[in-house]
């Protein structure tokens, strides 16, 4: 009854050994799974470029509001620049968070992740990494433009890119927990901010300080190190929590 080309000939026993190649539960298998999950998210994002641009446009708009609302005087803007850039980046990354798991939950992909036999923690890490590559990194690359428009000197730009890049890693990781917890709720936007923003405060504090020092030409290593510490802590703990949250949300 088996048709040509069908894998019917394979017995279950031999299939099990064939599976060992990918190592159903091995670390190598988990890394391969995470790599594929990352690639899938990147590919999907590039198929829907419109969504990709939204947080960036939002970021640019918010930074533009301040000169209009406060004053076009560069000396005053320069003083506010770190706060403006970081608040805008925080809100922009929050905006993108809502999409982090929504489609996956809706089409059953998340369920398949949870049932894949691979470590859900690694898969969550991959999804968060994709999210950072698609929002955090572009934001970091756009931050210099915003900084320039707010009167920051050219010499400060490298420091600003660095601080936003490192800080947004932590933001994506913290956000992934909130996004996983609010999964499947109808109007989750406001709640997601309520859950995520208080936890993001340390990132905001250190990030804004690093940016401020970059603009004033001070030594910004100390706040940058603290940002890095937050990112490392996030990398080790947040995917675990996000995986647990996803399992709870699937129940």
């Amino acid at each position: 009854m088996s048709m040509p080309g069908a894998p019917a000939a394979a017995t279950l026993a031999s299939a099990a050994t064939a599976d060992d190649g990918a190592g159903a539960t091995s670390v190598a298998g988990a890394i391969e799974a995470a790599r594929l999950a990352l690639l899938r998210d990147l590919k999907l994002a590039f198929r829907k470029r419109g969504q990709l641009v939204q947080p960036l446009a939002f970021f640019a708009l918010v930074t533009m509001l301040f000169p209009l609302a406060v004053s076009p005087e560069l000396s005053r803007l320069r003083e506010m620049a770190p706060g403006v850039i970081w608040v805008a980046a925080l809100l922009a990354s929050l905006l993108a968070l809502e999409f982090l798991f929504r489609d996956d939950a809706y089409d059953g992909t998340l369920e398949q992740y949870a049932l894949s036999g691979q470590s859900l923690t690694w898969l969550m890490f991959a999804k968060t990494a994709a999210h950072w590559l698609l929002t955090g990194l572009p934001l970091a690359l756009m931050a210099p433009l915003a900084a320039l428009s707010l009167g920051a000197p050219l010499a400060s730009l490298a420091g600003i890119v660095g601080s936003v890049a490192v800080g947004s890693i932590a933001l994506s990781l913290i956000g992934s927990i909130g996004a996983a917890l609010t999964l499947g709720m109808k109007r989750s936007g406001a709640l997601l901010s309520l859950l995520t923003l208080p936890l993001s405060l340390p990132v905001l504090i250190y990030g804004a300080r690093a940016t401020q020092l970059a603009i004033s030409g001070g030594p910004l290593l100390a706040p940058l190190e603290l940002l890095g510490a937050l990112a490392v802590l996030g990398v080790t703990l947040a995917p675990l929590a996000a995986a647990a949250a996803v399992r709870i949300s699937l129940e």
Partner: protein
Amino acid sequence: MLDERLEVENLHLWRGERHVLRGVRFALGRAGCLEVTGPNGSGKTSLLRTLCGLIYPEEGTVLWKGENVRRDLPAFHAALAYLGHEPPLKADLSARENLRYWIGIRRRVAPSALDAALERVGASGWCDRLVRTLSAGQRRRVALAGLALLVVPLWILDEPTTNLDAEGQQLVGSLIAEQLARGGLVIAAVHQGLPAAVRDVRRLELPP
């Protein structure tokens, strides 16, 4: 190693105020096929998701090879393929890309095996089109191709024949028959009964 065997003992599940599963029990050994029937809302999907370990039951246990599946969920999941009532496909990827990621996350798939599975479900002609342009029946076929690639001991299927034409239903039948022939287990929630190709089916009827 112990034989592949799924045992369910005294499963109780509540959803909100509703006592959905009231003491479900059954055992299924190698080459066993169980169809789960019952009216809408009788908890078929909840039962399947509980068996998978997605839902934690209020009471009762699910044993795989004589051991509580909660002990080692990843190992159990590696032996399990679950197909929900919606095919787990991304609308913005082609059928082939979907399979490559979905199955690839679980195990290595050779491109030739992928082609063979797509051909088997009659998808050769349209497997490079985006899933959003496919009909519901075609999407279901892509999901079946994924299932054919998952040569694992236990299949849990939620309404596998939905949206399929007569030929597609036969395809489901032959896939299940093959899984049983190699000693695998199949549990399927169905509305109209499994296709005729599947014989020796046991039935579990859930009360409304």
